[in-house]
């Protein structure tokens, strides 16, 4: 299975994602330069974290117009698997591949810490190996992760089971205290209707190896491979 990691100017988790795919899955993985106009031949595209274009104007706003994004949008619309992590999630929102928008964290500070996530949807390719309600410990690191959407969109997200991760406490309870940034409904990650595009603020690539304090993030990468193997069969 071949992974592609998009590199925008200012991406800074690109190398981390590449490393995680290698370390956890030992699968082929390549960078895709933002000026490229094709993502052909890749089985999963990762939009990594960082500060594409310095996050100037709004996080993800400028990156969304990078040449490669047209190809990514096409790819996603044809059912290709796209995982946006942190800044990658913000780019997906700006590109309209996922609904809603990001605001600055409630406390107006950048927040880097471990969070607990309740897995709400195990039917996406990215969460196939999780159990419903499973709690994962995965760190966040962002200044603009305060997810927002209007009532109607939220209802749709719920109806279509598009909420994939919500911030919770260690026991899996979704509480206000467990919400690091003020995100609506404690949303940490959502997918599109078909489940082939996932955006999440927490960083699974930062906790995919035991030496980093937790390997809970590995399950996402393993899920992708497992789903792909199932699909190919």
């Amino acid at each position, binding site marked *: 299975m071949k992974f592609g990691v998009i590199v925008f100017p*200012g991406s*800074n*988790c690109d190398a981390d994602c590449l490393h995680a795919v290698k370390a956890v899955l030992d699968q082929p993985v390549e960078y895709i330069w933002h000026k490229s106009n094709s993502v052909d031949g890749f089985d999963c595209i990762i939009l990594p974290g960082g500060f594409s274009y310095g996050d100037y104007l709004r996080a993800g706003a400028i990156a969304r117009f990078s040449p490669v994004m047209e190809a990514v949008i096409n790819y996603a619309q044809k059912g290709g698997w796209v995982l946006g992590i942190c800044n990658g999630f913000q780019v997906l929102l700006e590109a309209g591949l996922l609904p809603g928008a990001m605001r600055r964290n409630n406390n107006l500070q950048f927040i880097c810490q471990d969070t607990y996530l309740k897995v709400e949807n195990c039917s996406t390719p990215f969460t196939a190996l999780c159990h419903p309600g499973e709690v994962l410990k995965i760190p966040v690191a962002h200044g603009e992760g305060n997810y927002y959407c209007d009532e109607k969109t939220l209802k749709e997200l719920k109806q279509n089971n598009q909420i994939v991760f919500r911030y919770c406490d260690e026991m899996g309870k979704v509480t206000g205290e467990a919400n690091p940034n003020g995100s609506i409904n404690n949303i940490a990650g959502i997918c599109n209707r078909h489940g082939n595009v996932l955006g999440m603020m927490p*960083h699974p690539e930062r906790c995919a190896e035991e030496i980093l304090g937790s390997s809970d993030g590995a399950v996402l990468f393993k899920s992708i491979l497992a789903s792909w193997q199932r699909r190919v069969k």
Partner: protein
Amino acid sequence: MEPRSSEKLKPGIWREMGLTDQEFDRVKEILGREPNYVELGIFAVMWSEHCSYKTSRPVLKFFPTEGEQVLQGPGENAGIVDIGDGQAVAFKIESHNHPSAVEPYQGAATGVGGILRDVFTMGARPIAVLDSLRFGSLKNSRTRYLFSGVVSGISGYGNCVGVPTVGGEVFFAPTYEENPLVNVMCVGLIDHKDIKKGVAAGIGNPVMVVGARTGRDGIHGATFASEELSEESAEKRPAVQVGDPFMEKLLLEACLEVIKSGYVVGIQDMGAAGLTSSSCEMASRAGTGIEMDLSLVPRREEGMTPYELMLSESQERMLVVVKKGTEDKVKEIFNKWDLEAVVVGRVTGDGMLRLTEGQQLVAEVPAKALTDEAPVYQRPYSEPEYLKEAQNLSPVKIPIPDNYEQVLLDLLASPNIASKEWVYRQYDHMVGTNTVVRPGSDAAVLRVKGTKKGIAMTTDCNPRYCYLDPYMGGMIAVAEAARNLVCSGAKPLAITNCLNFGNPEKPGVMWQFRRAVQGMSEACRKLNTPVTGGNVSFYNETKGTAVYPTPTVGMVGLIEDLDYCCTQDFKDEGDIIILVGETRVELGGSEYLSVVHGLEGRGTPPQLDLELERKVQQAVLEAIKKGLVKSAHDCSEGGLAVALAESCISGGIGAEIYSIENIRGDALLFGESQSRIIISASENNVAELIRHLTLMEVPFTRLGTVGGEELRINLMDSGCAAGRPRPVINLPVAEMESRWRGAVKCLMK
């Protein structure tokens, strides 16, 4: 209005630029004529204290700078130490005190930018940032403004570039009220074969300016850093530069790529004094000259004069000397990263820095005159008057508190001891996925991907000790840094330092400076941690009063096998706790005296026996390497009780302590005797551990056991009946934790 370069100088104008009359005469002597305005500006900035080290150079000679681990000592943009397998670590620390006092966010942010460039200019990929900060009291709203601005500046810049900020320190004392200290250290990883230097070698090679365009920002920043802060400082505000971390990230990637390409001869960032210092330093190191046509320098604003172009401190720029004929290839690489790279001149053989604007000559100065031949001053020094008075404090006069629990809680909530989570939560400390030990432990540890190795790093300095005895304080700063690394299982390799002092023209300050450097040197020799570079920041004064002498030590160490990496947290029920080292009645300069008795900066600081220190460190390091130790934590501010509490809090588990040492209880619990490390070990390893410690001839005490949900401490002191230890502290870990964790956050609300 700035005069045209051909006009005659206004008498005395050199003084406004910071040159003395004698220095101006020397300039005339060197040139054999009057300098023009541009040349004068160049001399003024290069001969400023900040750039020339004219006061500190003779004193810095005390530092040991050699060791087999040292690949690059002082003199380059960063020092480099070997970590085996053809790999090395480049590191350096720098101050951005004055800019941060005027504009905390941008001041701190551009400080991070500068130190990152110092490291990647060597060809190293920055893997970590540490920040060492000093502020006044958080009760003061101005301090809170400065503190939060500085922290968000560091976070805003470092996070965006994608280099994790993994460690550092914050210390609060009234002396820093108006003059905060912002020292930032960067650590990078490099293969020996990729090491690049700031040399303009090879006559005829093109000289290129790359990165951001030059604007009018920060003109005379170096001079600004070489003066005391005053009311007028606010008016010098155009000196404040704005950083562009996004540009820096592109510059970083492009520079590393171009260095790997093999086209680069020499490269240096444009820090203080911008184009001036980078060009004359690179020429001077190589024994060459440089000529540049300033009309070719890409600029942000129209109408910029040669003077402005030479002295601008616009950020995110580099000067690169490339192999002749590779200019286009180099441009291609920079263009790929959306950056400009422009040939502005070439290397010459005549040792001159020659500047033209088109055909017109605007300045011509021997490069070496600006660097190696800058003035040097042996300034007078004498013991400052405050010292005897401040040191004079008889322990007998300090009442022994009757409630040690309260003292412990108060200390845990003191901003100097309390959790700095409010700070490091704002720093991305994980990007890069190398951070094995995150901020909050004695030292941060990063893995080296593809190996079993880890790099441990820390910054340390207790300025109170330095105020009360700069020699001892300097020695302790080095020893403590090394001890912190040892607690993580690392062998200390070398240091970089940032020497923050007051006005060196005052003999008292000069004395502090010399003594501190001598103390540090002594410790570096004994612990085999040579100095690979650093930075001196003088004139940290307001209204005529100097800040505490603050010689910050940044140290890196090597963990050969990360399976034997150690942290400070107590691990398991039943583990045995041992104190290595010995506790004396030493209360001077302690946090306890300041917080509980209102005696800030009084008494003599704890004494350091370097031989004992060395042995303690060696014994603990070897025990960790043998796998005998489950946790190790250095006793520093707040003493034994605070160190125990911290190990409990971070481990989420209690401990029961029996101390049999019969000295005054407050000294035992809260005194800050040096060379002490608290370790814990599983019961079945204790016999072997004790044998090991005995063989290593270090003093140690078995203190007690890990377990339960409280920290309980029992003392044998004069309050005990019939030789039975009495319980003096019994506090739930949760309660200590909430005090400790909440304090800074609460003050910042």
